[in-house]
């Protein structure tokens, strides 16, 4: 029973079904606990268990549709989604996803797509892991200082209405966010997130959320809901593009991952309210850095097998 192998029809490999459910569950718990999408951890983990990178990226995009849809429902009920801003980000995202797929397919033909995906992961995981690590160390220090009686040093307030952002034309009013800004910055944020979604199989929340707070000056309470709203459509579009141009979306793999994922996310949300977030966040940061380290190591150290097989027809 515990050794049950399942044959993945598109990846054309047999993988233990419980390993996939467990991976989905574990990443789901983390994403529920920290409010991160989890795609940036899941996709490299799929590489490690032998899923072809092209299939991992496309299938993970499909799984993110499920987790972000589940997340956005709660935000819609609480009315913490700026639909107008979300739509502007989405327009950018669709363009970005299209560009990303073009780049992905071009490099696939050159045999360099694995390298592109891995390099993107090393860079982004390295930066995000380091930032998260520093941030949570700071948070722990603040709580400790507060407990020892001293006045806590103020947390950094997001700066609003940066000079050059305010100077751009094509201004639009975003009532829910209480903003009157140019559509150019949100469009560009959308495009970059779309490119990342297509190349890395991630939702891109880890880029979009800080950009929304610091660059666009959106209020924190609508940031997560609005980014989830955008992510659903961009990852759905990415799934369609990969399915129709590369035939690399593995439905069986997606279903196993998302069963684990949606259950894990709900458990994670419960756990997150009970446990100390800062300490856990350090663990997450270390985990992100470890995955980054493993990917970087594989690129730097001479591989045991210098040759690899690419199948020009399939994937």
């Amino acid at each position, binding site marked *: 029973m515990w050794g049950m192998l399942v044959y993945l029809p598109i990846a054309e490999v047999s993988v233990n079904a419980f390993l996939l459910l467990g991976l989905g569950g574990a990443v789901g718990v983390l994403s529920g606990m920290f409010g991160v999408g989890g795609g940036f951890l899941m996709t490299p983990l799929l590489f490690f268990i032998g899923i072809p990178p092209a299939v991992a990226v496309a299938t993970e995009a499909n799984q993110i549709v499920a987790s972000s849809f589940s997340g956005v429902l709660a935000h819609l009920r609480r009315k913490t989604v700026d639909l107008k801003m979300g739509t502007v980000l989405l327009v950018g995202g669709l363009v970005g996803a299209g560009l990303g797929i073009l780049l992905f397919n071009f490099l696939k033909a050159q045999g360099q797509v694995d*390298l592109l995906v891995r390099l993107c992961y090393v860079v982004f995981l390295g930066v995000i892991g380091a930032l998260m690590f520093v941030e949570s160390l700071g948070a722990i220090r603040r709580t400790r200082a507060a407990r020892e009686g001293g006045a806590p040093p103020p947390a950094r307030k997001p700066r609003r209405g940066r000079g050059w952002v305010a100077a751009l034309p094509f201004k639009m009013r975003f009532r829910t966010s209480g903003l009157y800004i140019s559509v150019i910055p949100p469009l560009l944020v959308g495009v970059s997130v779309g490119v990342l979604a297509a190349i890395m199989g991630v939702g891109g929340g880890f880029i979009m959320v800080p950009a929304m707070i610091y660059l666009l000056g959106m209020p924190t309470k609508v940031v997560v809901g609005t980014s989830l709203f955008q992510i659903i459509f961009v990852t759905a579009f990415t799934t369609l593009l990969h399915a129709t141009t590369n035939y690399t979306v593995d439905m069986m793999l997606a279903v196993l991952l998302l069963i684990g994922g949606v259950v894990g996310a709900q458990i994670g949300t419960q756990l997150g309210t009970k446990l100390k977030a800062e300490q856990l966040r350090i663990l997450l940061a270390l985990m992100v850095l470890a995955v980054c380290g493993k990917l970087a190591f594989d690129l*730097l150290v001479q591989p045991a*097998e210098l*040759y690899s097989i*690419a*199948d020009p027809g399939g994937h």
Partner: protein
Amino acid sequence: MRAVLLALALALVLPPLDAAAQRIVADLSQERVAIDARFEGSELVVFGAIKPEPGVAHAPVEVIVTVSGPLRPVTVRRKSRVAGIWVNTEGVAIDAAPTLYKVATSAPLSEVLTAVEDLRRSITPERRIRAVDAREAGSEATDDFIAGLIRIRERQGLYAVQEGAVQLTDQALFSVNLALPANLVEGQYTAQVYLTREGEVVADFTRTIDVRKVGLERWIYTLAHQRPLVYGLVSIAIAIAAGWGASALFRWVRG
């Protein structure tokens, strides 16, 4: 044992169609392999009988059994170090390589097959893989790339050369068990039996095996390749339904 008995029975019952060509009678344990979601690989038994040539004293015969998957073009790439990291730098297009290729012999390969005969019949993996264009283009290293391809597929359990694996009894009965791994590609597979004497093939026999995805696997694979847009939409619909279902379920559980 059952295989051997069956082979014996076959050898006795089946009348010779053509005395010269019908030197071998062989059969397979299965002519159809169904890949379903629980497929964990399979075992193929190739067995049969050799008819003696009456009255002539000959050198002993040996048997070679091959099982080949469908031939597919592949590109083999080689990495080298560029600016400190390992990058695919060279590639060779192979015209046709079997997706699976197993060779089993009744004695060491060098004794059962001459190099010339191998060249003529394309029996060893190195000979079976065709890279005419790459060789024409004068790529000196083509052999290295082919060796790389064979090495990778051997590790994946897709290629193997099993010398001495064919059981040959009394110069008359033979059988061999060949493992088909779980990562099979679907298509028409061929099993071939060669009878050799002093390294020359004196008779051969071919059977086909149909390897197909079935059930859900079949449905998913066909939909993904023939109606990719519908497939993509179905994938998204499943994801949305799962996301909604999970949210609704947990809200209900929490009251």
